[in-house]
C-alpha cells in the first residue's frame, strides 16, 4: 500500500517536473494570437485558443474547460485593453497558476506594445462600452501584428531561454514573409483608399485606418449597444443622402441589421472573416488578410 502511494507521489513529482522540457503551453485568447504564437513558436509551443472567430471575444463565458487550460498554461497571450475583462481575470484567478498572473512573464498583452486608436478623452458609460485604454480590436492592421510578433518573441525567449535562438530565427523568417505580404496587400488595396464604408462595431477601425477606408457610420449607435429601430431609421436617412459603397460585417456578427440596411441604402453587405478561422480561406494570418482584401476588392473595385 505504502509503496503504491510512494510510487504515486514519485509519478506526480515527475509529472510536475516534465513540462520544463516540453513545449511551452500557450493559452491564446483569440485565434489570431494563437496563429501568431504558432508562427513564432513552431513546434516549441503548444497553443490552445480560447475563443473562435464566431464569438465576440468581449463576451464569452469563463468556461470550466478554459480554467483547466489556464491551470497548465506557461503563457497567457491576450489582447488586453479590457477586451477580455469579462472572463480572463476569472480564468487567471481560478487557475491557481502563479506563472500567468498579470505582471508575471507568463502574462502577455498584445496591446502593451501598441499605440491604440480612439483612446477616449473622458470615460462615461453613457458613451457605450468604451475601453479606457483605447480601441482593443488591433489585429486587422498588419503592422500591429509585426510589432506584437517581436514582443512575443522576446517573451517566449524569456520563458524558454534554451530555444531563444529558435524563436528569433522563426520571427525573422515570419517578418520577412509578413513585410513582403504587407507590401503586396498595400499595393493591391490602393483602389480602396477613401471609399465610404459602414461598419458594424468599431472593431473594424484599425482595418479602415490601415486601408484608408472612410468609415462614415457604424450600425451600433454606441460601442456594445445593438441598434434600435429609431437609430436605424436615422441611419437610412443619412446614408441615402451619401450612400456608402459597402457595409462591412464580421463573421461573428448577427448580419440581420446590416442586411436590412443594405436593402434600403442599396449598398452590398460583405462578411469579413475578422479573425483567423472566420472564413474557409482565413486559415492563418496570411489567409486572414488575403481573404479580407479579396472580399473588399470584389465589391469596391
Amino acid at each position: 500500500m505504502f509503496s503504491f502511494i510512494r510510487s504515486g507521489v514519485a509519478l506526480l513529482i515527475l509529472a510536475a517536473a516534465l513540462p520544463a522540457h516540453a513545449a511551452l503551453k500557450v493559452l491564446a485568447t483569440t485565434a489570431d494570437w494563437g496563429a501568431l504564437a504558432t508562427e513564432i513558436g513552431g513546434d516549441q509551443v503548444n497553443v490552445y485558443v480560447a475563443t473562435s472567430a464566431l464569438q465576440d471575444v468581449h463576451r464569452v463565458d469563463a468556461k470550466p474547460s478554459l480554467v483547466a487550460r489556464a491551470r497548465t498554461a506557461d503563457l497567457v497571450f491576450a489582447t488586453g485593453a479590457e477586451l477580455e475583462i469579462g472572463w480572463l481575470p476569472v480564468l487567471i484567478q481560478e487557475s491557481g497558476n502563479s506563472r500567468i498572473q498579470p505582471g508575471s512573464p507568463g502574462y502577455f498583452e498584445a496591446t502593451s506594445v501598441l499605440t491604440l486608436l480612439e483612446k477616449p478623452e473622458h470615460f462615461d458609460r453613457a458613451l457605450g462600452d468604451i475601453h479606457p485604454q483605447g480601441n482593443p480590436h488591433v489585429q486587422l492592421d498588419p503592422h500591429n501584428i509585426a510589432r506584437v510578433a517581436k514582443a512575443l518573441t522576446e517573451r517566449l525567449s524569456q520563458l524558454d531561454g534554451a530555444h531563444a535562438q529558435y524563436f528569433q530565427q522563426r520571427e525573422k523568417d515570419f517578418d520577412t514573409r509578413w513585410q513582403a505580404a504587407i507590401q503586396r496587400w498595400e499595393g493591391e488595396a490602393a483602389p480602396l483608399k477613401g471609399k465610404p464604408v459602414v461598419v458594424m462595431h468599431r472593431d473594424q477601425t484599425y482595418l479602415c485606418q490601415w486601408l484608408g477606408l472612410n468609415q462614415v457610420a457604424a450600425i451600433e449607435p454606441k460601442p456594445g449597444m445593438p441598434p434600435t429601430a429609431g437609430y436605424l431609421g436615422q441611419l437610412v436617412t443619412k446614408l441615402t443622402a451619401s450612400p456608402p459603397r459597402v457595409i462591412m460585417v464580421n463573421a461573428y456578427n448577427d448580419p440581420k441589421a446590416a442586411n436590412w440596411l443594405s436593402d434600403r441604402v442599396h449598398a452590398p453587405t460583405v462578411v469579413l472573416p475578422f479573425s483567423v478561422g472566420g472564413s474557409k480561406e482565413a486559415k492563418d494570418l496570411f489567409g486572414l488578410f488575403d481573404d479580407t482584401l479579396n472580399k473588399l476588392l470584389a465589391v469596391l473595385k
Partner: protein
Amino acid sequence: MMSCKALAALLALAGMTTPLLGHAADDVASLRAELQALKDDYHKRVDALEQRISTLENAPVGGLAEATPAPEPAPAMASAGGGGGGTGTAFNPAISLILTGNYAHIDQDPATWRIGGFLPPEGEVGPGERSFNLGESELTLSSNVDPYFSAQMTAALSAENEVEVEEAFFRTLALPEGFTAKGGRFFSGFGYLNEVHSHAWDFADQPLVYQAFFGNQFKQDGVQVKWLAPTDLFIELGAETGNGSGFPATRLSKNGLNGATLFAHVGGDYGDATSWRAGAAYLDQRAEDRSFETVDEFDLPLTNAFTGKSRTWVVDGVLKWTPVGDPNRRQLKLQGEYMQRRESGLLTFDTAGSNLTDDYSSTQSGWYVQGVYQFLPRWRAGLRYDSLDSGTPHIGLVESGELPLSAFPLLLPANPDRISIMLDWNPSEFSRLRAQFDWDDARDSGDRDQAFRLQYIYGIGAHGAHKF
C-alpha cells in the same frame, strides 16, 4: 473617548487620501500646479514610450547576436486583466457599486410567509415586502495587495440603513501546483448558486432549497483551500472550515473550528456549443443553542433552540448551450441542485420558560431546476421549479408524551413547492430590468400565494467578471 480617537483617526485618514477636502482654497493653486506637473510628466512618458516603439519598429531584425537581456516586459500597462485601467489613480482598488430595487405585488401577507416543515433559517428569506422596496446596494472594492495576495470586500447596504460586511477576504496568487487559499469572510464554494452574488442571480430570489437550508447563502469567517488538477478536464477540489457563524451552524462556546466543508467540481465542453459543470459537496457542522422564534399550541410566542450535528449533502449541475458562439445572441442555461440534510441532537422547548429538552432528529431534502433562455440579444426568459420535503422529524418531547405535536407547529411535515417565471431585459452589460411571477406554495397551505415583482439591477464602476 475611544470613538473620539477613532473619529479623529478617520478624519486624518480622509484628509490624507482626499486632499481636496482637507485643504483650504489657497491650496488649489498649488494643486493645479502639481496636476500640471503630473500631466507633463505623463506626456513625457507617453512620448518616451512612443519613441521606444518606433525605435523597436525600425530596429534591424537581424543582428540580435547579444543573447537576450529581455527588455523588461512593458510595465504599468501590463497591469490590466483586472480593473484599474485609467478610471482613477493607478493604485486605487477597482470599485463597483450595484444598485437594486423592486416593486412587489404579493397576494398573501408577506409577514405570514414561511417554509412549511422547516425551521426558520436566519437571513433575508421570503418574497420581501409589498410595494416599492430598495434592495441591497452592494459596494465591492478589490485589488491585488502585492505579488502574493489579492483582497476583496463587498459591503451590503440594506434598505433598513444597515451595513453588513457580506464578504471580506484575501486570496493567494502565488501558491504552487494549482493551490489557492482564501481567508476571511466569504461565500462557501460548494454548489452552484452559493457563491453567486445576488445581482448575478437569474431570478429575483434564491431557490427555496437555498433559503431553507442556508438562509439564502452559506458563509462564515474562515479559510478555504482549493486545488485545481493539471488536466484538460476541469477538476477542482476544495475544503473549508471556520467559526460556523452562518446558518445552519453557530459559533461554538469553545476554541477551535466548527466542522468542515468539502466540495468537488468537474467540468468541460461537449462539442463547440455546450459547456457543463457538475459538483458534489458535504458540510459537517455543529449548532449550539441555535434558537428560533415560534408559537406553541395556544399560539403564544416563544423561543426554541437546537443543539447538535447538522450534516448536508449538495449535488449541483449546470449546462450552457450557446449555438452561435456569442452568448449574447442565443444561449440556454440549465441548472439544478439537490440538497439533503440530517440533523440530530437536542431540542429545547421554550428556552425562556418551561425549558424542556429532549432528543431530536430530522432528515430533510429539497431541489430546484431552472432554465434560462437568451432568445434575443437583450432578452432572457426563465422558468424555475422548487420542491422541498421536510420529512417527519423525531421529536423526543412529543414521543415521550411530554408535549403534544401541536406544540411544534413549525415542525409539522410539509412538502412546499413553487413555480417561478421571469423575463428580463438587458439594455447593456450594466443594466437589467426583470419581471418575475411566482406561484408560491412555500407554506404548503394548499392555497398558492401569487407574487409579482418588477426588479432593477444597475452596476456602475469597474467592469465585473463573472464565473461560469
